[in-house]
């Protein structure tokens, strides 16, 4: 094949593929938005791909009230804030100890976190369920907070990479000034880890926001609904009222889409450093 021909062919193929990809990604989202804006009348009279005759934002109000989405957002926010703050605190603590000190069981600790990575959390729920009940946390938000709180090997590695870039001389000069190790952690290590913590917090937020089976299993009360479970329960009373179901789905999807618009770079960087370590 000659050079120019191949370049034109590849160029065409490239943009054609992107347009197909874009269409496949956007078509379902587009349909969801269009449907969510249709009145009951438009829903039954118009074609499924047609734009509504007049925009009916009433679906959003009905969905918000009927699905108790306000309290779902509050419950979710409460769980996310507590879990993320705790998670960052514990994660930085573990990483600080593992990267700055030598001690006998260090490899064992790291090894334990690595082993856990290969136990899919969802498979052990049958037994975790007993633990949560035993702790008296069943059907409380703290069940979820405890489950999300624990740090994992991916976070530890993200933090350790960052800590290893903080010169030890910084610790040492603080020690010359009489700072304790605890002081070094609180006023040097923790603040300097903030960029890594931002990444960890975003990844954790995405995970918690999308989690379905933990809230489903551990917080069955309707009043304790989080976004996933509230949306799932919404289908029951409103089954086949697709304009309402789509409105509720769009509402639930919006917060993370906004987060994504503003923090895209962090999210990409987080996913990459979560999957790959040096």
């Amino acid at each position, binding site marked *: 094949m000659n050079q120019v021909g191949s370049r034109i062919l590849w160029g065409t193929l490239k943009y054609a593929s992107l347009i197909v990809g874009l269409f*496949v990604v956007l078509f379902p*989202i587009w349909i969801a938005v269009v449907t969510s804006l249709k009145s009951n009348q438009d829903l039954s009279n118009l074609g499924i791909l047609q734009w509504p005759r007049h925009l009916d934002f009433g679906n959003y109000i009905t969905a918000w009230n009927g699905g108790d989405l306000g309290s779902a957002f509050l419950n979710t926010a409460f769980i996310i804030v507590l879990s993320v703050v705790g998670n960052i605190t514990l994660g930085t603590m573990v990483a600080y100890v593992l990267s700055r000190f030598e001690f006998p069981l260090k490899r064992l600790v790291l090894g*334990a976190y690595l082993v856990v990575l290969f136990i899919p959390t969802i*498979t052990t729920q049958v*037994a*975790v369920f007993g633990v949560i009940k035993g702790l008296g946390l069943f059907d409380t938000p703290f069940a979820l907070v405890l489950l999300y709180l624990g740090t994992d090997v991916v976070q530890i590695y993200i933090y350790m990479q960052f800590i290893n870039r903080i010169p030890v001389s910084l610790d040492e000069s603080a020690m010359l000034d009489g700072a304790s190790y605890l002081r070094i*952690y609180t006023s040097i290590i923790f603040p300097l880890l903030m960029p890594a913590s931002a990444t960890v917090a975003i990844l954790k937020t995405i995970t918690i*926001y999308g989690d379905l089976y933990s809230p489903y299993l551990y917080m069955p009360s309707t009043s304790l609904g989080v976004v996933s479970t509230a949306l799932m329960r919404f289908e029951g009373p409103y089954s086949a009222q697709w304009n309402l179901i789509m409105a509720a789905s*769009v509402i639930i999807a919006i917060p993370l889409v906004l987060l994504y618009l503003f923090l895209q770079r962090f999210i990409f960087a987080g996913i990459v450093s979560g999957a790959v370590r040096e």
Partner: protein
Amino acid sequence: MAVKISYRMQKNLLIVGFLIVPLALLVTFSFYPAVKLIYYSFTSWDGLSQQYPWVGWANYATIFTDPQLFGSFLHNFSYFIGGLIQNVVALYFAVILSSKLKGRSFFRATLFLPYMLNAVAVAFIFKFLYLDGGALDTLLQSLGLGFLQHDWIGNDSIVNWALAFVSLWEFFGFNMVIYLAALQSIPEELHEAAALDGAGRFRTFWYIIMPNLRAIIQINLLLTVSGALEAFNIPFVMTNGSPPTATFLINTMNVAFTFDNYGLASAMAIVLLVIVFIVITIQQRLVGGGKDVV
């Protein structure tokens, strides 16, 4: 601090103090349940009583003889194939996005968007899309592809493929971002050297880029394959885990939380764990070079 503690003492206090809570969580919610799971799997515990009647290997025998149980891995098969296609698609778009391109960040941002949507919302959107005579069928009709119309959810021989596609749609952007980062970390000189030697686009990809992506492909496959074995959310929300779509994990959860047979469910969870482990090991043998990989 009024009393100065020696650094040696401080170090010991700090190590214990900083590790005790995280390790307690790790033991309570990961190791202890894993051990318990093994124990339960040899009993016929109902989840409530104080008694744990010992049944030996009976639960395991049930899993491998009852086609309803082990057979449900067949429903995971479509997610497995879907996962492989997902990686090909992700890598393909990553290659495109890493080439000379107008509007790169727009395309990248949009292709990744599905990953950011709430999983339940995605499941509902596709449930609507897949209705018999619904949006997808209408679209196919208007594209002149009417012969492809189906009752996507109602037809038992198609439904798992339709559900696996939802998974592909939702997660390919995630793999794509990882591939993209890997592609961008390949030094420019390699491309130039290949071009100087007269290598075409395809040969450059196959001989220069692919070997450099080995570790990354392995990570992505690992995530995808274990994801396929653990498929749960999509059938759970879209079909309430109906029998033709019940994946192994859905059956496990039903056996435990609907039929109160925690013993059998634990054995199923152990079987799943072992299979995930075997698959990961085989894959590492095949693809190899996974030392620098989490």
